[in-house]
């Protein structure tokens, strides 16, 4: 069913200074399972097994000429990261940090001195997130940036203040950053091995994971086995394994396909390849559309953004995926590939229903094309905003997500309107009725009010644990009102976003 590899390979990666060649484990073995069960490396903890608590945070290294020492380091959740995805990578865990000669790593030392651990169970995860930040950032980010760097790590004991203080202390201590050049040499040697085609023995449950290195090889692999499941960052597929026990006999990993790492502007569009992580995609979008900064920050934790891909968010088609409202507002299109055939569809036509799309058997989303204004920045007459409303500011699933774009003529009249929504229906969608109310009108409070009324009839959201339908409908209209407050000129109002408000003097 999953085809037979011509030449099966082990999973090869760097661990504890040596090349590990893993065979004999299930194809869907997670990094966390391998560490805890096979290696009895017990510093990495399981808190939730779904990538939301960060107790299992590890750091992965990969070759990158632009990174210090030629090796990029990124933190991920080991509980939903598949071992096979480590092929050709470096794996660092909390046990790797202390130096036999120098002692504790600066972030560990600071965590001790600042009383950053109480029960200690989340601590290895925080240490790894701080380690990742420390090794990548010569200067400490500001308070908000630091909090964001830790958004994927939950602590139930400390209230976080001492952990933030530990970060301050670590950066104030004499710098002691890792030399990455030995890793580069070892990773370069690993890269000479052929592409991963891992076949688990039947005794371990079987299963196959391929990591083709070209678009042609990928297309062929998926055509050969249309039942194969495309795997990108595993931030959702990981949960199918850990929580649903779903059988995934054949996974084809996109990450090593060079063409899918594309992130470039061509023909007036930003092309974001299917293997481009959120961590790379959002800054690229933000470069053209600074208005997405808030959403980009709140999209997910760094550990999820380091693994998950923007195209994965789109292709997964969840009605609460936060990328789609923005992409709909920007009239994004998708490049779909089946075998060697490529077609382009507007994102607005991609979703057919709840988690159903126009993708055919063997077809995959190759990239998303986002029209970009030329030249940068956005022309003064276009207005764009994104809003995310959830119970918690960071790392939460949206109750209402909205993206609005208005193109205005010189007189302030709306030429084109895009109102796009997440969390409001079975699919991410636009509201053409309310858009029609806006188009041709002046962007005024009265116009906004009329569009709000139209939204009330056009949106029929559901009630669930995140919010009631009544709340969602009310807030949808209110967000449009907020958009008006933010984009109308001449109204000297105090800040309209909570995170801009400061305590009273």
């Amino acid at each position, binding site marked *: 069913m999953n085809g037979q590899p011509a030449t099966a390979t082990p999973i090869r990666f760097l661990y504890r200074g040596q090349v590990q060649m893993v065979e004999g484990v299930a194809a869907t073995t997670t990094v966390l399972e391998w560490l805890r069960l096979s290696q009895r490396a017990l510093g990495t903890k399981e808190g939730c097994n779904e990538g939301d608590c960060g107790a299992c945070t590890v750091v992965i290294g990969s070759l990158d000429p632009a990174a210090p020492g030629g090796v990029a380091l990124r933190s991920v959740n080991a509980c939903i990261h598949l071992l096979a995805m480590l092929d050709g990578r470096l794996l660092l865990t909390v046990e790797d940090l202390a130096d036999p000669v120098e002692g504790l790593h600066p972030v560990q030392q600071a965590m001790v001195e600042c009383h950053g651990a109480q029960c200690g169970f989340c601590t290895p995860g925080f240490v790894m997130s701080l380690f990742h930040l420390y090794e990548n950032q010569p200067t400490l980010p500001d308070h908000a940036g630091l909090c964001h760097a830790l958004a994927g790590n939950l602590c139930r004991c400390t209230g976080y203040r001492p952990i933030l203080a530990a970060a301050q202390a670590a950066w104030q201590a004499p710098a002691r950053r890792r030399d990455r050049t030995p890793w580069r040499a070892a990773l370069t040697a690993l890269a000479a091995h052929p592409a991963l085609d891992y076949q688990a023995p039947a005794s371990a449950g079987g299963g196959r994971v391929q990591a083709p290195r070209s678009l042609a090889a990928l297309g062929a692999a998926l055509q050969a086995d249309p039942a194969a499941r495309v795997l990108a960052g595993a931030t959702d597929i990981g949960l199918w394994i850990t*929580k649903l026990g779903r059988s995934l006999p054949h996974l084809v990993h996109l990450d090593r396909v060079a063409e899918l790492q594309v992130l470039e502007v061509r023909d007036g569009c930003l092309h974001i390849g299917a293997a481009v992580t959120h961590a790379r995609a959002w800054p690229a979008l933000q470069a053209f559309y600074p208005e997405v900064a808030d959403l980009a920050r709140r999209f997910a934790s760094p550990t999820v953004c380091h693994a998950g891909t923007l195209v994965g968010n789109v292709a997964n088609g969840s009605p609460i995926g936060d990328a789609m409202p923005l992409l709909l507002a920007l009239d994004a299109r998708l490049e779909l590939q089946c075998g060697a055939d490529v077609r382009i569809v507007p994102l607005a036509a991609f979703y057919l229903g709840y988690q159903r799309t126009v993708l055919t058997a063997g077809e995959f989303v190759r990239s998303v094309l986002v029209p970009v204004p030329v030249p940068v920045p956005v022309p003064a007459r276009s207005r764009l905003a994104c809003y995310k409303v959830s119970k918690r500011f960071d790392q939460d699933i949206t109750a209402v997500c909205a993206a609005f774009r208005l193109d205005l003529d010189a007189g302030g009249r709306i030429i084109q309107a895009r109102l796009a929504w997440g969390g409001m229906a079975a699919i991410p969608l636009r509201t053409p009725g309310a858009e029609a109310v806006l188009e041709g009108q002046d962007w005024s409070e009265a116009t906004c009010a009329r569009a709000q009324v139209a939204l009330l009839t056009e949106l029929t959201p559901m009630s669930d644990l995140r919010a009631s339908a009544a709340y969602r409908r009310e807030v949808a209209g209110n967000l449009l009102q907020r958009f008006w407050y933010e984009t109308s000129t001449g109204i000297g109002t105090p800040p309209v976003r909570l995170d801009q408000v400061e305590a009273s003097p």
Partner: protein
Amino acid sequence: MNAPQGVAPAVIGQALAHESAVLHVTGQAVYVDDLAEPQGTLHVALGLSPVAHGRLRGLDLTSVRRAPGVIAVLTGADIPHNRSGPILADEPILADDTVSFHGQPVFAVAAETRAQARAAMRLAVIDIEPLPAVLDVAEARAQGLFVLPPVELVRGDPAGALASAALTLQGSLRQGGQEHFYLEGQVSLAQVREDQTLHLWCSTQHPTEMQHLVGHALGWQAHQVSVECRRMGGAFGGKESQSAQWAIIAALLSVRTGRPVKLRLDRDDDMRATGKRHAFLSHWTVGFTPDGVIEALDVELASDCGFSADLSGPVNDRALCHVDNAYFLPAVRIRSLRCKTHTVSATAFRGFGGPQGMLVIETVLDDIARHLQLDPLLVRQRNVYARQAGTGRDTTPYGMVVSDNLVPLLFDHLEPEARYAERRAAVAAFNAASPTVRKGLALSPVKFGISFNATHYNQAGALVHVYADGSVLVSHGGTEMGQGLYTKIRQVVAHEFGLPAAQVRLSATDTTRVPNTSATAASSGTDLNGKAAQAAARKVLQRLAEFAAGVSGGDPAAVQFQDGRVRAPGAHPLDCPFAELTARAYKARVQLWDSGFYATPKIHFDPVTKTGRPFYYFAYGAACSEVAIDVLTGETRVLRVDVLHDVGRSLNPALDLGQIEGGFVQGMGWLTCEELYWRADGMLATHAPSTYKIPTATDVPQAFHVRLFERDNSEDSIHRSKAVGEPPFMLAISVWLAIRDAVASTLPGNQPVHLNAPATPEAVLRALGRLPPAPGAAGPGGATPRGTVSTGRDNIQPGGTMPGGPA
């Protein structure tokens, strides 16, 4: 004591790091799941009920038994003593004829690997005839469904006082429950041993109770079961009674198979199958003067206890004893209803009913202030207990005199430190000019009773071993869950011997070392075990002093233990390292180890009339919080927090600060973003961190100023310190009050604020009047069951299948 105490002032009151800090940061700290597994260890998965209430008609486990790796399957019918519970034995270990909540364990399967056990568990066919389920406390209250009989506490003539009061107000409040979300889930490893004995490694706050309940389920005596816990990855009350079921199942399977058995709950199963903080629905009538001084209060506290009694009796007693918080209630009736619903049994959680009681009176005072258009802080100040006892207005509804009231003093300090008046004006000015964002400010006190309400729990034992080489090992009955208990005990014992802290080591808590211990709960860990360890140390110290004096020819009382040395004056003065003395004492056949025992003095409580002196003393605190709310979405943000908290004379300021900050943020989560949501079919939809949101770093204000208010405890506690585990949790009520204040700024005149807890964006938008009022029968946790649709990452039922798409 004749023997001199050691003199090492640096040890007591020093901000020593947690004794496991280096192990924590390097990943070397061992939790139960990290222990080397004995050869042949089996792993357990549980089958949970997919129905909230029903009759278990059939349980077909044929496929489960045949699945790869499966060694044993356990059902309720296999358990001879299938009833358990910390006080009443009213909970099935595995459901037998009836299921009482969605997620209740119905069977257990043990297999060679955890993955095999979980795969096999999914193959079960459970046939349940559904019965009507009561999922909401309001409905249980209306139907008179209780797990325990109602309790009433009356002082004075509240009915008469209400009738004659100048002004009266009525109100109600819904408070949601709370998931503990300890980062380390429930876990037990049971190993059956020779001659019908069993050892259990368990992540638990209450090893002795695990010992008793495991013994009960096996039909064994206590001396056949030993329980050990080195540390927990957080507990917060969730591993007091709630660790028992998993310990028992592991033990039963170990005895049945003859193999070691580990049961570690998956996070989703843990959240569905273990108890949470009690949700409360409260109604009150208050009578007060035109100045806002309360004359009478009639309040009913209906709590959602879930399907069984568990610890609901004492939890609700504590709620009853904290309705006054820091305020004098001249005439009062408190009626406590312990309602039964078809949800998981509610349990202990930091504060143990205290927060729920306090939130009611703080709401009442806010309502009075708003009604009279007075500053809420002024109304609070007019109602607090007297500064000096004996001047009237000093006795709690349960008859205990508040003899050392620090609240007025805390107000005196905090009000200017937080610049309350200036910021009150600034908030008003900001609000006048802001269309979409409103600010709110609140300053509120905490008075929390320290001791277990049930007097007999207030005892502890310890064992101090001084080895011949001068090193010290301490065992006690308390458990380490991150709060730093071991560190404080280490300081206490090191102080007695005049040793550096590093010379003292703590052993894992083990029922074979110290028997008949109480739960590490009620904030009492250091108070009880510290005194017991001190008593044990002093016995050994006395013998060492006598031995040293014998050598020197001097007076035992003059022997000094300091800085790791012993100095004994006399005809033959002795001045030697501590280790040298212990070596000599050993050879002279001096007993170098001993036990200590402590029973809290002065306390008594009548469980029937609910009166007495249940608490040895009170811990106090006050907090001032400023928030902003978005009136378009109901989102909130905490802008600044100032805390002044009474820790007595701190044993370790760093650990105390950690408890205050951590408790505050946990309380803030309870009152803001943490919402438990049950679907209409009774399934907990918020069963994972993807859907249940505890605060993250961003939610904590950068301006978070916490100061310890240090002064001697007026009672003879360990080194005059005060308990600090729970009291700070309730400082976070100021956040919720500040949100109310911000909401109030949008409402005309003295219109009351109808804000439930938690103040989620939706709850706030509703309080702002921008949504239809909540339907009468709001769901557990303050939320309304609103259909069964769920989508995306949350639509995962542990052990089940993906539900369909949106309806």
